[in-house]
């Protein structure tokens, strides 16, 4: 790893220094460092590019890091990563991706992640996406996440697209069994001419299953964002989807919510708000001595925290 790799890793995956972690660092389409632990095994797939991560039953406080770095301009990377979490486990997974593109060709990473989470297990999944570089080549990230939550299993998923990603289409699908719980927090910032599209499809099959999806986004300059969600309640269940967006300059945001209840005891809620920064918020922070510019930054940083 060179200095640039370390710099990107630090931005997308701050916790990598943990010694008790299982990890796989992927750079420009190849695994460059890997370690397994007694309870967590990482193995290469034999039929396609990617890895299988196996977490043993009853693993408590397991840590997995699978950062991806792209530094070759024009490189298009596609990887299949499957997480097999056995029952009664508690695991934290970090999966950031950083692209550095200093040239003219487009660079892209397409990570297809599948989670098979066993009964009573709890998984925290953190994903940071980041782009940088002086070239005019695009930095493209198109992640696909599929989640299968077993009985009473929980997935908390925090995703953040910090900055510098030219284009993204994020697709997340989840299927929940009895008592399963899904909590997703998504944060996206776009600028210049960037585009971001997120698509959620959550199917609540289990009795007393629940889902909470919160999306907070800021679109500036001439960027465009689109939020699409479809939550389907097939049993006695609860879901709350909230999409909040701040727009600035000539940016635009579309929110397209859909909720489908196929069971009389399915309670599904969707809330969406799009608008500029409220004038009263700016005034309040200015009465505390912040300049208008600083007040605006503080509001946006808080919103995306």
């Amino acid at each position: 790893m060179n200095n640039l790799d370390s710099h990107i890793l630090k931005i997308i995956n701050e916790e990598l220094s943990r010694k008790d972690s299982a990890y796989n660092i992927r750079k420009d389409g190849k695994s460059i460092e890997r370690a397994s632990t007694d309870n967590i095994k990482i193995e290469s797939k034999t039929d396609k590019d990617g890895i299988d991560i196996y977490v043993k039953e009853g693993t408590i406080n397991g840590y997995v890091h699978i950062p991806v770095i792209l530094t070759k301009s024009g490189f298009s990377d596609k990887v299949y990563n499957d997480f097999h979490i056995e029952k009664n486990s508690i695991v934290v997974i970090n999966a950031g991706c950083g692209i550095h593109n200093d040239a003219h060709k487009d660079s892209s990473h397409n990570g297809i992640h599948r989670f098979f989470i066993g009964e009573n297990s709890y998984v925290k999944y953190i994903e940071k996406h980041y782009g940088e570089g002086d070239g005019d080549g695009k930095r493209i990230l198109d992640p696909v996440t599929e989640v299968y939550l077993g009985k009473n299993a929980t997935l908390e998923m925090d995703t953040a697209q910090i900055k510098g990603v030219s284009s993204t289409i994020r697709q997340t699908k989840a299927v929940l069994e009895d008592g399963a719980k899904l909590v997703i927090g998504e944060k996206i910032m776009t600028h210049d001419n960037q585009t971001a599209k997120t698509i959620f499809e959550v199917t609540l099959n289990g009795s007393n299953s629940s889902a909470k999806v919160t999306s907070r986004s800021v679109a500036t300059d001439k960027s465009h964002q689109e939020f699409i969600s479809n939550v389907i309640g097939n049993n006695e269940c609860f879901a709350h989807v909230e999409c909040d967006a701040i727009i600035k300059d000539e940016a635009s945001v579309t929110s397209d919510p859909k909720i489908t209840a196929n069971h009389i005891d399915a309670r599904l809620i969707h809330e969406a708000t799009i608008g500029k920064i409220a004038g009263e918020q700016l005034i309040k922070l200015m009465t505390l001595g912040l300049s208008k510019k600083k007040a605006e930054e503080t509001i946006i940083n808080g919103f995306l925290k």
Partner: protein
Amino acid sequence: MIELINLSYEIDNKKILDNINIKFDSNFTVITGPNGSGKSTLAKIIMGILKPTSGKILYNGEDITNLSIDKRANMGISFSFQQPVKFKGITVHDLINLSSGEEMNVHDACEVLSQVGLCAKEYINREVDSSLSGGELKRIEIASVSVRNSNVTIFDEPEAGIDLWSFNNLIKIFKNLREKNNGKTIIISHQERIINNSDKIVLLENGKVKEIKSTKELNNIVSVTNCCKVGGDINE
């Protein structure tokens, strides 16, 4: 000290404030008057939230009429909103840090909150958003302003929405501000107990100063304001 000279404010050809002349030289001045008399407008003009149509605002002799809100704040003027502003993602602790201008540790931030009768641990990491009740937001607003220890602090109807919290605590905060920095407090209020604790009362009516009285003449004025008070207009 704040001084208003020949200050007027008009909107849509309607005079909201008409040739106001006031010297806020007392420690604790209450501006009172019936709904629609221009009290909140006057407070917002002092802070710079609204610009007067004509007239001058002096702060310690310096003309601040055309200065921005943040410049006035940094000169030592603070403002407590009648209706507290909500933020998604900004916590109570963040707001106290922003107000005090420093990173306060949890213990000190909790001290600030306990002054307004809030059990700090329950609130410190909560977002300043709709999950808090109106009364909770109001107390946090008062706490965040009082921690600034400004030379001049303006409270726009601090009693509105205070729910079960006692007025004694509110009065205590005003006294603290006076003791620290010898700060001057300007309060828009209809509340008799707040008026009773003031050094000076300004009675506004139809955008004009009807009377300015000191504590000595307090009793007469209280009876006058009682005649016209009916709560307070949020959008005034």
